[in-house]
């Protein structure tokens, strides 16, 4: 595939156009990658507001009524519900793995069996998150397809 990059002056006009004969899984993957790279979130930490890339998020966690995004060594509080994040970023490799967690599959190192049909998600930052049994089929479908 040919790749052309054209420099423009206005950041607001930045745009990625893919010209293809057919929308194959590879094209979808490039689209998903581009969308994730372009997405930023706003969250607060120590009473200050920060912007960060969605692609840097390892996982989202709901604690009581508050939702946090975890990046490498940082956590931001978000003004959004966990199910809204789950729905908004489902096509960007974010998936619910338990009542309180939505994980980034791109930041997932591996999984290992836990007790009673559950699994442990080993994230690339070394953290471990439990995958509830009821969410295992959805996660398998997202990664393995129909297998």
């Amino acid at each position, binding site marked *: 595939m040919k790749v052309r990059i054209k420099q423009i002056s206005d950041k607001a006009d930045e745009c990625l156009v893919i010209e293809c004969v057919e929308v194959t*899984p*590879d094209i979808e*993957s490039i689209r*998903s*990658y581009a969308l994730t790279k372009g997405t930023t979130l706003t969250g607060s930490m120590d009473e200050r507001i920060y912007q960060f890339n969605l692609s840097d998020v390892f996982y989202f966690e709901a604690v009581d009524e508050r939702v946090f995004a975890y990046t490498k060594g940082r956590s931001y509080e978000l003004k959004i519900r966990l199910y809204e994040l789950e729905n908004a970023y489902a096509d960007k*490799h974010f998936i619910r793995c*338990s*009542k*309180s967690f939505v994980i980034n*599959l*791109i930041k*997932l190192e*591996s*999984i*290992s*069996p*836990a*007790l*009673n*049909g*559950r*699994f*442990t998600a080993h994230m*690339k930052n070394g953290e471990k998150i*439990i995958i*509830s049994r*009821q969410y295992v089929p959805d*996660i*398998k479908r997202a*990664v*393995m*397809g129909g*297998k």
Partner: protein
Amino acid sequence: MDFKTFFVKKVMMSFFVSVTCICAAMALVGMVFEPDARFSYEAFLSPLIFGATASIPSLVQYSKKDLSLRQTAIRNVLHFLLLEAVILSILYFLGLLTSVSMAVSLGISIFVIDLTVNLVMWINDKRTAKEFNYALKKLQDDYGAGE
């Protein structure tokens, strides 16, 4: 998972599997040791009674919240102890448990079956995790996130 879903999925499934296994075991053991024995209609009730009583201890595994690995392990041990107590008590009150050695051997049998079921589940989950991790790496490579 709410209690209704848990009851239908876990307890009812346990009941039907237990009843099927008890029927199969009664038929096989009966054909080998007492092929000429005849029973009345009441005999149909014993698999149902034992199936129901063997399923009741599953209720200790219910929780509205996601349990940690430690909490799950404790509940699994509790489930096993209750299962032993319920089955041995019923056999004792029905007058089928005639000696200590018989109680001990039955207790060990229940332990071995419980251990085997959990071991088979764990081996199956291990295989699933291996296939998942392979597919995950492929997904991440396609995405360009292989780190």
